[in-house]
């Protein structure tokens, strides 16, 4: 068997948004970097998550929008969805971006080795390639960035043919008639929005009292109402009791917290009840690296219990978001190469690409009230000029600030393009800005983001366009 030995300053296991960013940062800092990826570069985010869903969301939204054009005086005759073409557009976007990552890595002289990596010892990795050949990679510093996969739930029938992961759902040859989604978190509600807009009958089942349970409660409440109005069935405080394949569809048995049981049918079931860290097959036990609650524990410099081994992204748990993994990749590599940087999670934006969009950054009202005397202010998009002009006047901006100094602690948004507005909100939180600063910064008119300035005006006691 052919075996060769590769020496590097830095080896990274996993080429997702955490790993590939870490690799580029390492190369920028002058290290010889090896990146091991067993599948496609870009990881879940690029191949199965953020990016392909955004492609399909746009398709779904454009398709759904055709129904609303008549009120603008645009008459559309005939409306037809070519699902195969929609998937092709999605695949093309994914291919472009994956190619872009490969190009960036190549230009940064990162050596990419395709195969499955595992630890031999704390400084050596064994990489098995698909053709059976093996490489040994010796590196002083190693970063584990193996990501996560959809988590199963202990329910009868969960292994059935009609119970799909998001990856499988994205590649169905044709659109289903109906879809039941287990889990009302970010992934669940986005898929609900996409498939509803494409004409699929959708149900969402969430065990906790709100959709988007980790976000500010007002957002989930708003979305549940909106979904119901659109015709999406929303069941909160509800557990799935069992699943059964009845031939042409799946039978789903649910029970809410009042004990009321219901049975309904859907052609497919999407399992979106959280994600679990990919730690199997790395031989972590062999090098004495223990897991805690299913994830790799790290310190605030993202170093594991073993000196020189770092871990980032979904595999360390915490906030499982691509942009968090990327930031962690940079922090870990800088620390691995002699800097001393802490991971700072005070300003992590979260974006949900439903229609209308949802976004937030900083502390929720409940979290903030545990540590501060807070003030909460809202500004509705009904009072925003551009939102009214383009007929998207729904949703609001909610500002949570600290009372004594007016520090902006959290901003929670639902409305048009708010996934873009949250960038400004994130800067305000990261910079420890005060409500006065946000209020006195001139915002362009007419824009959606005037709403941020308006809510800050409300916080200092004088909203101009609201009473």
């Amino acid at each position, binding site marked *: 068997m052919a075996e060769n030995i590769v020496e590097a300053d830095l080896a990274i296991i996993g080429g997702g948004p955490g790993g590939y960013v870490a690799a580029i940062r390492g190369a920028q800092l002058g290290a010889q970097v090896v990146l091991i990826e067993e599948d496609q570069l870009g990881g879940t985010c690029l191949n199965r998550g953020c990016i392909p869903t955004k492609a399909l969301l746009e398709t779904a939204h454009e398709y759904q929008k055709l129904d609303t054009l008549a009120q603008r005086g645009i008459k559309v005759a005939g409306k037809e969805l070519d699902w195969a073409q929609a998937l092709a557009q999605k695949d093309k976007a994914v291919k472009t971006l994956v190619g872009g990552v490969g190009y960036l890595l190549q230009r940064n002289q990162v050596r990419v080795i395709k195969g499955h990596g595992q630890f031999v010892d704390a400084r050596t990795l064994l990489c098995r390639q698909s053709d059976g050949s093996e490489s040994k990679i010796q590196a002083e510093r190693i970063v584990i960035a193996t990501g996560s996969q959809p988590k199963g739930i202990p329910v009868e029938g969960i292994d059935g043919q009609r119970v799909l992961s998001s990856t499988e759902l994205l590649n169905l040859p044709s659109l289903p008639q109906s879809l039941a989604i287990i889990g009302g978190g970010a992934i669940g509600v986005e898929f609900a929005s996409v498939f509803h807009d494409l004409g699929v009958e959708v149900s969402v089942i969430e065990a906790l009292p709100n959709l988007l349970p980790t976000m500010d409660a007002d957002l989930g409440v708003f979305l549940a109402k909106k979904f119901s109005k659109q015709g999406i069935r929303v069941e909160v405080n509800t557990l799935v009791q069992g699943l059964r394949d009845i031939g042409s569809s799946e039978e789903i048995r649910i029970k809410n917290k009042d004990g009321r049981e219901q049975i309904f049918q859907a052609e497919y079931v999407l399992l979106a009840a959280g994600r679990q860290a990919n730690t199997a097959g790395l031989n972590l036990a062999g090098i004495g690296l223990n897991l805690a609650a299913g994830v790799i524990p790290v310190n605030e410099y993202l170093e594991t219990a073993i000196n020189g081994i770092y871990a980032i992204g979904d595999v360390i748990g915490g906030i499982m978001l691509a942009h968090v993994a990327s930031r962690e990749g940079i922090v870990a590599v800088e620390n691995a190469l002699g800097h001393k940087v802490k991971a700072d999670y005070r300003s992590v934006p979260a974006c949900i690409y439903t229609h209308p969009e949802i976004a937030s950054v900083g502390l929720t009202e409940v979290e903030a009230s545990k540590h501060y005397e807070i003030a909460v202010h809202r500004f509705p998009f009904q009072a925003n000029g551009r939102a009214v002009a383009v007929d998207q006047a729904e949703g609001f901006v909610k500002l949570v600030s600290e009372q004594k100094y*007016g520090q902006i602690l959290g901003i929670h948004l639902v409305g048009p393009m708010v996934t873009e507005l949250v960038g400004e909100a994130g800067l305000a939180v990261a910079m420890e800005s005060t409500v006065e*600063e946000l209020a006195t910064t001139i915002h362009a008119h007419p824009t959606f983001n005037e709403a941020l300035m308006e809510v800050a005006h409300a916080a200092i006691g004088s909203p101009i366009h609201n009473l």
Partner: protein
Amino acid sequence: MPKLAATMEEGIISCWHKQVGDQVAKGEPIVEVLTGKINAEVESPATGILEQIIAADGALVPVGEAIGVIAESKVALQATPRMKKLANELGIDLAAVVGTGPNGRITEQDLQEHQQEALNADPVKATATARKMAAAEGVSLPGIQGSGVSGRIQKTDVQHALHEETAEKISHLVLDDYEVLPLTGMRKMIGDNMAASAFSAPHVTLTTEVVMDQAVQLRQELREKYRNEAKITFTDFINAVVIKVLQEMPEVNATLEGNEIRRWHKVNLALAVARKKGLIVPVLKNAGRKSLTEISQHTADLVERARADRLTLEEIQGGTFTVSNLGMYDIDGFTPIINPPQAAILGVGRILERAVVVEHEVMVKPTMVLSISFDHRIMDGDAAARFLKRLKYLLENPYQPVVE
């Protein structure tokens, strides 16, 4: 009384630069305040007239209490219409400019200087929340190390500064078996300095015994003679002789600064002064030009102000040689640690009647042990030995200099 350092609890008004009725501009230094270690200039928080001085020079004032009143200026500004127009064009608030022309009139040069100063000012980088918190809690931002991007001061840094202060207050614990004191502030500063000296300067200590009978007699005579002008102590007397020898031997009156050995023409004699809150070493500047009575008077003043925490930063800087006298504690002799960047330090022991052999006979005479620690990077043993020998000679033959 502004809070000038995280640990500051009170300050002494060193001197007012302005008198009641004077025009003051925002940002202009108006009063000097002495804190534990240093003298700091306090800037006027507003533009106007100094209406009242509440705390006069020398007053000890807790942080946060009023020391004076500034009335915002309502009087017409002393500026010609041309200056007003120019100020308007340059975007300068005339009220913030101090006029140097006749009757405090603002001149074109005043405007230009004001604008240059505004351009040169290096604003403290801090988040808006950190600024508000600092203002509310009376913490001075310039003293805080920022942990944010590009050193920006964040809320946690201000909280940390506040916390440190409280920690210092509460961590003075008296337990059953021992007492806990934090190694902070003065204690830490002294410790760091001494450790730096002990670990970087190769120390050698030479010791000799000096027969002091003639010195004791001469000092007695001098004390009587100058009794109306000064109280001449043994320390003053010994220091005066040390100063003379240092003037003769600039190789000992030296400092090591970077790669330079500086042999000083002037003698700035540093005097170790023990205090409850920690050792301090005020400097008798240009001591070679001072008479014995002046040495005595100035030393007394420095020591008194050192114990009252009223030395300026300048008064504890610039020493060229240090004397540490532990005679009053009944210490025979000791090996002092050099006060960096100086080349050497003299340790002075007590004067005690001891058995001395004079011409084969044992006699009882007052003697004193002198020890010099020197930095072997700066000089060799022979220089320090010659210094000590000369000092011993002059102390044993104190009438000699008169005829030399």
